[in-house]
């Protein structure tokens, strides 16, 4: 079975790459993926999110076998995987006044919250399904690079739904799912892979003192797929010309692992221009 890592072997676009380029900061994208600068640290939220995904994957595997996952076991699994993840990632940056153990406790509470929300009538169709599909515009022209990714979960109940697991620091605004690029990317891929139009749902666990579980459903149209491809074409042109722009007011700046490289970017850039002039 081909894995996401197999697909990463070729040049590609992915949702995380597109979102980083188009919505977070194109300079951050460039420093990480184009100039290949090593990140100064791993944000703790990233390691935490990876662990949560692995736990949800294990829970879903049990559900797929039509068995009932045990909450206590799942919480213990989070604790175990989190400590392993911390060791594995090494250079993790934690928020002030937050420790490894605080996050271990929080992760277990989020796991329990997510398990309480499981609908036993939902059939698990697939878990962590990797994909690679061509990117084709409205006129039938395909791009060189494929779109790759991995779909967290696909379930069946009153129709098929693609699910993505999220942990969030705060409750989602009403239109976040509607405007997110992720359902567009994943439903576009799913349609090409299986020839099926289906719905998309974010299963979000909010890190409140008492965790809250939210579901946000959305759909996408062919016109939205076509718009996505035009955005990718635009991004490709910007990459080709190395037009990378720091998003100076991004919410991500404070925790950006490329902050140092970013702060000296304009000085390096002016040097390059004066050499070429």
């Amino acid at each position: 079975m081909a894995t996401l890592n197999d697909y990463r072997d070729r040049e590609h676009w992915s949702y995380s790459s597109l979102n980083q380029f188009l919505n977070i900061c194109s300079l951050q994208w460039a420093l990480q993926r184009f100039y290949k600068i090593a990140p100064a640290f791993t944000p703790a939220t990233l390691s935490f999110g990876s662990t949560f995904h692995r736990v949800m994957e294990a829970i879903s595997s049990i559900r797929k076998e039509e068995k009932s996952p045990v909450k206590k076991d799942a919480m213990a699994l989070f604790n175990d995987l989190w400590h392993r993840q911390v060791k594995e990632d090494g250079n993790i940056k934690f928020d002030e006044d937050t420790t490894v153990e605080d996050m271990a406790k929080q992760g277990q509470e989020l796991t329990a919250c997510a398990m309480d929300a499981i609908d036993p009538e939902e059939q698990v169709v697939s878990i962590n399904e990797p994909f690679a599909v061509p990117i084709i515009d409205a006129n039938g022209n395909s791009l060189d690079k494929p779109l790759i990714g991995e779909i967290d979960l696909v379930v069946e109940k009153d129709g098929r739904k693609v699910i993505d697991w999220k942990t969030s620091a705060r409750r989602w605004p009403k239109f976040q799912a509607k405007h997110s690029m992720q359902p567009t990317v994943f439903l576009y891929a799913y349609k090409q892979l299986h020839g099926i139009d289906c719905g998309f749902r974010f299963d979000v666990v909010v890190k409140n003192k008492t965790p809250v579980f939210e579901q946000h459903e959305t759909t996408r149209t062919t016109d939205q797929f076509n718009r996505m491809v035009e955005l990718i074409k635009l991004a490709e042109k910007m990459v080709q010309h190395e037009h990378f722009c720091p998003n100076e007011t991004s919410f991500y700046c404070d925790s950006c692992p490329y902050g140092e490289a970013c702060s000296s970017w304009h000085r390096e850039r002016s040097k390059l221009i004066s050499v070429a002039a």
Partner: protein
Amino acid sequence: MLKLNSSYSKKVPVEGRDFSSQSYHASVEMELSDALEPRQIQERIHDTFKIVKEAVETELNGKSQSTHKAESPREHTGNGSGEKASNKQIKYLTDLARVRDISVSELNSQAKKIYGADSIYDLTKKDASKLVDSLKTGNLKAA
């Protein structure tokens, strides 16, 4: 201050398209010290030209060692029939399929059925080439 500009370009035919070619070009611009002797300048020109020429050739042969590449993949070290089909090869395959009204899911099914590949992006160069031939000869048709 002297300025050295070394360029190398090469045109190659586009696979499967008559009267068509793609041009690959690389150039490097650098500054040299005024104090260099003519022989030293010639050596720099030779070395720099060698770098850009090799860069173009390695890119063409799919053996890029570049670290400055968008979404740069891990290197393909294999060659010959075991090497995965390139993005250009898959693009050609999907373009051909589309004009014949064959969907990506059908192509993936064929790739699985005939070559045991999980998707068209999992095909080897050799198998992708065979699938292209099947499409061209009409042996593979829309379901």
